[in-house]
């Protein structure tokens, strides 16, 4: 049935509907394209890593000379810890042995743990691969690797602000947790006992199939000594 026949056989309002039906595919495509462009604009404005969204991809050199690419570890949980060896809040967790203990427990469950150094050259906490190796040995830490991010590109991509600032990434590559290591912002190691460790809580919950109650907290500690770009 062609359009003229349709026009002849249908009433006036139905004819109008039929006439407009012709434009439906065009309108749908236009709407879809608009939605896509809006979505892209929104994505572009989101620069930082967000909970429940894909963890930004990175490839960084490690203390051992190897390059670690996040997407290579798809299928496994990954913990990211922003690290500055000279920060008092980092010292609180490492001098007390707390961080090493957590790292050992977590990495023994086939979970990867990367400590990322985003301090710029000449600033507090900046280290070379050799220094990172020495720190790892001296502290007897059990992270998978210490990664070097001297330009701060990865740190800024994740919106990392403090040391320690923690992220937990799911095997699917989405961010499960973004925030502080625990709920006590004191730099006193005596406060570790009795504090609520969010990273272990989140991992224990998700590994046991229980709901994760905390996805985001405010990180505390020293500001990351990024390279300041004018």
């Amino acid at each position, binding site marked *: 049935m062609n359009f003229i026949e349709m026009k*002849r*056989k*249908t*009433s*006036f*309002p*139905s*004819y109008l509907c039929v006439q407009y039906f012709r434009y439906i595919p065009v309108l749908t495509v236009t709407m879809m394209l608009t939605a896509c462009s809006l979505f892209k604009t*929104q994505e572009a*404005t*989101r*620069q*930082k*890593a*967000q*909970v*429940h969204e894909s963890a930004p991809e990175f490839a960084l050199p490690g203390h051992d000379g190897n390059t670690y690419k996040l997407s290579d570890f798809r299928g496994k949980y990954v913990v990211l810890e922003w690290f500055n060896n*000279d*920060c*008092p*809040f980092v010292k609180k967790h490492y001098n007390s042995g707390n961080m090493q203990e957590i790292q050992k427990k977590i990495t023994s469950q086939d979970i990867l743990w990367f400590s990322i150094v985003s301090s710029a050259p000449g*600033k*507090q906490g900046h280290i070379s691969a050799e220094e990172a190796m020495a720190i790892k040995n001296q502290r007897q830490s059990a992270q998978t690797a210490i990664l070097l991010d001297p330009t701060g590109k990865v740190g*800024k991509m994740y*919106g990392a*602000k*403090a040391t320690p600032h923690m992220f937990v990434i799911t095997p699917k590559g989405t*961010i499960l947790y*973004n925030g502080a290591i625990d709920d006590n*912002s*004191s*730099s*006193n190691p005596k406060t570790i006992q009795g504090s609520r460790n969010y990273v272990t809580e989140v991992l224990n919950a998700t590994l046991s199939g229980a709901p994760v109650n905390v*996805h*985001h907290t*405010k*990180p*505390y*500690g*020293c*500001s*990351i*000594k*990024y390279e*300041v770009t004018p």
Partner: protein
Amino acid sequence: MKQGLFFFALSISFSLAQGVTKPIHTSATLITEYDAIDPTQENFIGIRIHLEKNWHTYYLNPGDSGAPPKPKWQLPSEWTLGPLLWPTPKRISVPPFFAFGYEKEVLLMVPLTFTGHTVRRNEITIRLDLEWLACKVECIPYFATLRKTLPIQSQRLKSKDAPLFERVRSLIPKQKHKALITQVTPQAVTLKVTGINYKQALDFIPHPNMPLAHILPEFSQSTGQALQIVLKRYPASAQRLNPLKGLLILNSSQHSSNAVIVEAESPKTSSSFAAKIALCLGVLLILFLTIFKIILRKVPQKGNSIP
């Protein structure tokens, strides 16, 4: 040379013997407004923190990093301390971040009242274990145990620190103001504040745990005295914004303090009202289409039909 080394070693051993480790960039002291504590009145005691030039310590919301001072008090059970009173902080730029805190000197006041039945002692000893963080670019945590013993009596005189208490008291934000959250997007939240007298809005410092970024807000004055504030949201956060609290810092001659506490909420009925309207419109539309369809079927097609 040998003599110099001897005196250096002597000074270190002396300070160790005294149990004093003098902080390098900051110091803290416990001070009172009066030279005695009156059990019938509210008494103000204060933690005075001195900081070297370019060093800062933190407000209750420290900003992007840092930590506020943490006092742990010990005093007789019949005495009660009120909340720590935080003077209006300053925005401190630590590129690429912002901190909220204090430079040079800050006095954190706390009210002390007698809540017992009878005063049994004639003096009171206040002990404070204080932890605070001082930062320039790098941060140093400090710990101190401070003690002060004062007579308990109604006859009392102002201490030498009383003028400081007076000055700082005027810097503590007291005035509370309600505001409306007018727009929420994934990137920002817009507040509308009405009924305040001000010359210029300077800053908005969120209360702790507000899911807001700490960058400078955008201010614009709409009709009348209404002030519109656009605050950037913390990108990673999915926390609730309602109610949104913070300090609105104003340049004004109207207030003794230059900051007002703003508590903003979304209009309570607006979301549910909008949802109801949308539902009604949807039902009406479906109804209209159904009727339209029935009419089309029932009404004989005259005129347009071809025999």
